[in-house]
């Protein structure tokens, strides 16, 4: 799986180039994301525009990343499709990860 990153000030914008984050790639996804955190990026904004589906393992990986970011870090989401948004809302994780409409809004929330 490919993940690209772009810096916006002190915030790192991350784009996972996959259409689903599920059990089959959760281990790899988590590792790559934690590598980004370990490289010093603890304020992350995820662009989920390509993601159509996320399962429990994908959520688990994201929560692990959130925890790895530490108390001064943060993980925000934007461009979240309805099918993905619904699972965040069902599990109440939408309150943990702020879900934003645009990249600007997500980045601004961390600055």
């Amino acid at each position, binding site marked *: 799986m490919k993940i690209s990153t772009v810096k916006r000030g002190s915030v790192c914008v991350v784009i996972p180039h996959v259409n689903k984050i599920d*059990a*089959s790639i*959760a*281990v790899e996804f*988590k590792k790559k994301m934690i590598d980004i955190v370990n490289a010093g990026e603890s304020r992350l904004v995820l662009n989920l525009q390509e993601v159509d589906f996320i*399962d*429990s*393992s994908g*959520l*688990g*990986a994201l*929560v*692990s990343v959130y*925890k790895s970011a530490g108390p001064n870090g943060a993980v925000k989401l934007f461009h979240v499709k309805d099918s993905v948004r619904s*699972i965040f809302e*069902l*599990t*109440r*994780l939408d309150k943990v990860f702020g879900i934003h409409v645009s990249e600007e809004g997500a980045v601004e929330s961390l600055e």
Partner: protein
Amino acid sequence: MNRIVENPDKVRRAEVVVGIPSYRESDSIGYVTGKVDEGLVKFFDRKDCVIINVDNNSPDDTKQAFMGQKTRLPKLYISTAPGVKGKGRNIRNLFEAAVELGAKAIVMVDADLTSITPQWVQFLIEPLYMGHDYVIPIYVRHKYDGTITNNIAYPLTRVLYGLRTRQPIAGDFGLSGKLARAYLTEKTWDDNVSEFGIDIWMTTIAISRGFQVCQTFMGAPKSHRAKDPGAELGPMFYQVVGTIFSLAVDFEYLWKYSAESLPTNIFGFGLGVREEPPPVRVDSGRLLKSFVQGLIKHWKIWTRVIAPLNLDDLNKLQKMSADKIKVSADLWARILFDFIVAYRDRLIERSELLNALIPIYYIRTLAFVNDTRDMGTKEAEDFLEEECRIMEEEIYYLIAKWNQTPRQDGIPSIAQYLME
């Protein structure tokens, strides 16, 4: 259900009933009976009281030890039919007897207690006269005593039902006559409940059916026949855990919508207990060995049940030395949730599934021992509270997996429903 009843005092009515479930407890039941009698005479002398031994027709002298114990109050002996065993069956006999006697307050205490005082009876009964239906004890236990409680029963009760009841499988409880009648008509009774699943079943039913639940300080550490947590678990593990999992399936409508857990009302206060509970020895090497053996034996089941994300972390443990083992609370919670969903779907035959969980429970126990090795009782308790809080945060994983995994029981998941 056939039962054997000996009622030499011809007891027909009783407002307060204390039951002592037993099987092969001839060496300890006399002491417990004596303390119960002292407590009832001292604190409830104006009420009609009876002490009942509910037994599994023990082949030793349990009945003789109970009936032969000198007491001021009447005693009743009730046994299941010869060959019929199970703690739950004893307790069902107690419920039936208590309802027949018209009891308002019912207490049960384990027959192997060595730390019971007359006040325990008072502490378990008094809240019932103040409007509570179910009274759960709080007592100091050694940090390594009650590892099924600490690692599974307590955290899952918090996570699933939103109420912090520290000793949900304590074995010593108080309950109202109203709750006893409700237990007798409850539909969720099954074979596991008839045995060691009874304690967690009573607690879960009391909470989930909306009865008034409280905890009460007992004032002395619990002292009984404690076991090395690495010792053979036998059927107790899968009866208790199987009951928790079965009830999680029955009560999904509760936990899916429960918020953070709340503390339970506490009756009394800490009483300044300074007495240390008796030590429990742990064989760390045996716990690790059991895990590694279990990994080899159950690997195929684990790969079917446990999500790769969690299995990956679990697999790394086999290369660590016993004193370095860590199993984080969030990983442990997600593994339990993987097993609950597999249990719901009967992915594996249920007893086999629960047996496959035991080695992971052992390694989690070892991790807890490592984390708390240098802690006193209070610090270890604070540590466990934080672990439970972390486990509560993982509820999203269960909700997502529960909804996204196609159900095998004919009930469509939300995902299936939306796709149709």
